[in-house]
C-alpha cells in the first residue's frame, strides 16, 4: 500500500509527518496545482469568460460524467475493496439517490443543496436495509441478496411510484441548482398524463445549468469524497473494515462489532451512490430508469476490478480507463472492425455494431484484467512507485 512508500531523503521526526498524505513541499505543490488546473479547465474552454478555446467544451461533460461515476465506484470500493462485502445493486442505489433528489426539487421545490444530502441520507438508509442480510450470509449468497436489491428497487421506482417517477418515460424538468435569493414559480404541468403535481421553476442570481457550471459542483465534491474515503481508510472505521475483510473472526474476537461495521460499509456505499445519482440527475436535467439497470451495476463492479479494489485511487483509474475506452477508443476503431466484420461475415447485421463492440471490448478488457492483473491498475501504480523509490537509495 502507498503508506509503505515515502520520498527518498525525507526523514520523519514526528508521527504527524509519518501519517501525512503530502510529505514534501513538492507533493503539496503538485496536489494544489492539480486541483487548481482542474478548476481552470472550464475557464479555458469555449464556455469560459475569456473566450479561449484551449480545452474542448464537450470534454467538460465527459469529465463530469467520469467524476460522477468515480463517486459511485468509490462507494463500491469502500464496501468491496475495504470491507470485503459485495453489491450487485450500485446502479439501483444511484437511481434511489437520483429520483429522490429530482422529485424533491421538481414537486416540492426543495433546493438542490438540501435535496442532495437528503437524497444521500435516504439512499444510505435503503442501503442499510439491504445490508441486513450480511448478518447471516457471506460471499456468493450475499451477492445474490444484493442482486435482489437491484431488481426490487428498480421495480419499485418503475411501477408503484410511476405517478411520481414517470415510470419508463424520462423524468424531466429537474430544476438547476441556484445560489443566492431564488425566485420560485409554481406552475401547472403542461403535460397531460398521470402526473398531476405542480412544477416549481427556480431562477436565481447564479444558476448551475450547463455542464461547465455543474462542473464546479461535481468536481470539488468528487475531490472531497475521494479524500473522505482516503481518510476513512486510515482511521478507526477503515481499519475495522480491513479487519472484517481479512479476518472477520479475529476482528470479532478483538473487539470489533462486525455486523455494525458491515452495516456502516453498506451505508457508506449507498451514500456515495446516492450522491452520484443526485449529481447525475441535476447534471443531465433528466432521469431515465434505463440508465440504472443491472448491466450498469456490473460495469461499475468491472470498473472497480480494472482500477483496483482496495486502493484509494482504484476507482479513478477504473472509471477513467473504461470511459476513455467507451468514448474515444471504441468509436475510433469501430468503423474499421465493422468493415472487417462485414467482409468476414456478410450476414451479420451491422446497425448496432458500435454498442455491441463496446460490450465486447469491455468484457474482453475485464477478462484480461482478471487473468493478468486481478489487483487492478492501482496495484501496477504502486509497483511503479516502489521501483522509483529505489532511486537513488532505498529507505525502509
Amino acid at each position, binding site marked *: 500500500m502507498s503508506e509503505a512508500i515515502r520520498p527518498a531523503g525525507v526523514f520523519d521526526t514526528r*508521527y504527524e509527518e509519518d*501519517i501525512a498524505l503530502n510529505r514534501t513541499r513538492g507533493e503539496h505543490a503538485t496536489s494544489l496545482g492539480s486541483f487548481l488546473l482542474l478548476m481552470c479547465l472550464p475557464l479555458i474552454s469555449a464556455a469560459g469568460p475569456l473566450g479561449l478555446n484551449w480545452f474542448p467544451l464537450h470534454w467538460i461533460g465527459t469529465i463530469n460524467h467520469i467524476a460522477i461515476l468515480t463517486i459511485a465506484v468509490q462507494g463500491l470500493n469502500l464496501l468491496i475493496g475495504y470491507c470485503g462485502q459485495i453489491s450487485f445493486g450500485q446502479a439501483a442505489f444511484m437511481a434511489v439517490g437520483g429520483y429522490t433528489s429530482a422529485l424533491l426539487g421538481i414537486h416540492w421545490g426543495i433546493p438542490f443543496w438540501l435535496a442532495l444530502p437528503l437524497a444521500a441520507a435516504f439512499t444510505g438508509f435503503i442501503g442499510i436495509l439491504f445490508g441486513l442480510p450480511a448478518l447471516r450470509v457471506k460471499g456468493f449468497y450475499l451477492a445474490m441478496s444484493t442482486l435482489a436489491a437491484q431488481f426490487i428497487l428498480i421495480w419499485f421506482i418503475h411501477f408503484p411510484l410511476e405517478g411520481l417517477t414517470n415510470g419508463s418515460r424520462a423524468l424531466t424538468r429537474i430544476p438547476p441548482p441556484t445560489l443566492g435569493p431564488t425566485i420560485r414559480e409554481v406552475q401547472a404541468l403542461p403535460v397531460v398524463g398521470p402526473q398531476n403535481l405542480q412544477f416549481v421553476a427556480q431562477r436565481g442570481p447564479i444558476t448551475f445549468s450547463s455542464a461547465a457550471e455543474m462542473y464546479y459542483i461535481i468536481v470539488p465534491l468528487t475531490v472531497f469524497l475521494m479524500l*473522505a474515503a482516503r481518510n476513512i481508510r486510515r482511521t*478507526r472505521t477503515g481499519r475495522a473494515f*480491513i479487519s472484517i475483510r481479512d479476518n472477520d473472526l479475529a476482528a470479532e474476537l478483538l473487539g470489533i*462489532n462486525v455486523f455494525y461495521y458491515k452495516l456502516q460499509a453498506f451505508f457508506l456505499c449507498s451514500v456515495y451512490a446516492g450522491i452520484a445519482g443526485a449529481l447525475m440527475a441535476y447534471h443531465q436535467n433528466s432521469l431515465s430508469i434505463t440508465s440504472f439497470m443491472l448491466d450498469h451495476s456490473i460495469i461499475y463492479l468491472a470498473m472497480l476490478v480494472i482500477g483496483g479494489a*482496495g486502493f484509494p485511487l482504484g476507482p479513478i483509474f477504473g472509471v477513467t480507463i473504461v470511459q476513455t475506452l467507451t468514448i474515444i477508443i471504441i468509436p475510433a476503431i469501430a468503423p474499421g472492425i465493422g468493415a472487417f466484420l462485414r467482409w468476414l461475415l456478410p450476414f451479420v447485421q451491422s446497425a448496432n455494431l458500435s454498442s455491441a463492440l463496446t460490450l465486447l471490448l469491455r468484457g474482453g478488457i475485464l477478462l484480461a484484467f482478471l487473468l493478468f492483473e486481478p489487483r487492478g491498475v492501482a496495484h501496477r501504480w504502486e509497483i511503479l512507485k516502489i521501483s522509483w523509490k529505489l532511486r537513488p537509495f532505498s529507505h525502509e
Partner: protein
Amino acid sequence: MGETTALLSIDQISLNFGGIQALQDVSFDVAAGEILAIIGPNGAGKTSLINSINGFYRPQQGRILYEGYDISDVPPYQRARLGISRTFQNIALYTNATTLDNLLAARHIHMSSNLWSGALFLGPAKREEIAHRRSIEHIIDFLEMEPIRKSIVGNLSYGMRKRVELGRALALEPTLLLLDEPMAGMNAEEKEDMARFILAIHQLQQITILLIEHDMGLVMDVSQRIIVLNFGQKIAEGAPAAIQQNPAVIQAYLGRAD
C-alpha cells in the same frame, strides 16, 4: 491461590458439537497475575476451551465468571472490551494490511473516532491517530519489530507473523491474554525469543496469561501451574513438577503400561 483473587473462573462447562463432547464438566480458576498452561493430546479440547472463554463457542452448560461476573451471555466483541485478548493457533492476522494497521486495528476499543470525524480527519481524529500510534510504537519497540513496521504482514516470515499477532493481542491492553500455541512451528531460536517475550509481558505488565502449548520443556519452564485436558475432561491440575509425576497424565500421553 485463594478464591478471592480468581480473575477467571470456569465453572463446570460442557460443550458439544452434535454427538462430539468437546468439553465435559471442566472447572478451574485462573488467578490474577499467573501464567497457567493448558496441555493435553491433540483433540483434548484445549482450543475449544479458549474459544469458549472468548465467546466464539457457547458452552451448553456451566458458567464462565470473569472478575466475578458471569460473562456467558456477553458477545465476543464485548469480551474484548472487558480485557480478554488472544492469539490464534493458525495465525489470524489481517493479511493485506501493514504491521502498523494490524496493531492499530486492535486499539479499536480504546479509540473513539467514527465515520464522520474519521472522514474529515480534522483535529480530534488526527490527534487520536497520533496518540495511539505512540502506544503502538512502544509495543513495536518491545517486540523488536521496527524493521517490519510498514511491511504487509502477509509477506512476513512465519515466526514474524506470530510475533505481530502477539503484538496485536498486546495492543488491546488486555488483563487476560489467551495464547493458543504461540510457539507452534517455530525453530529453537524463535521459541526462545517468544518465551522471553511471554515472560517479559508477564513480569513487566502484570498480564495474566493462559497458555496452550505442546512443547513440554517450555511449558514446564514458563508456567506456574498446569491443567491437563484429555478427551474434553480435566485429568490433572498442579505445579509443573507434580504434573510430570502424575500417573493420569503419563497415561494420557504415553498410554498404559500393561
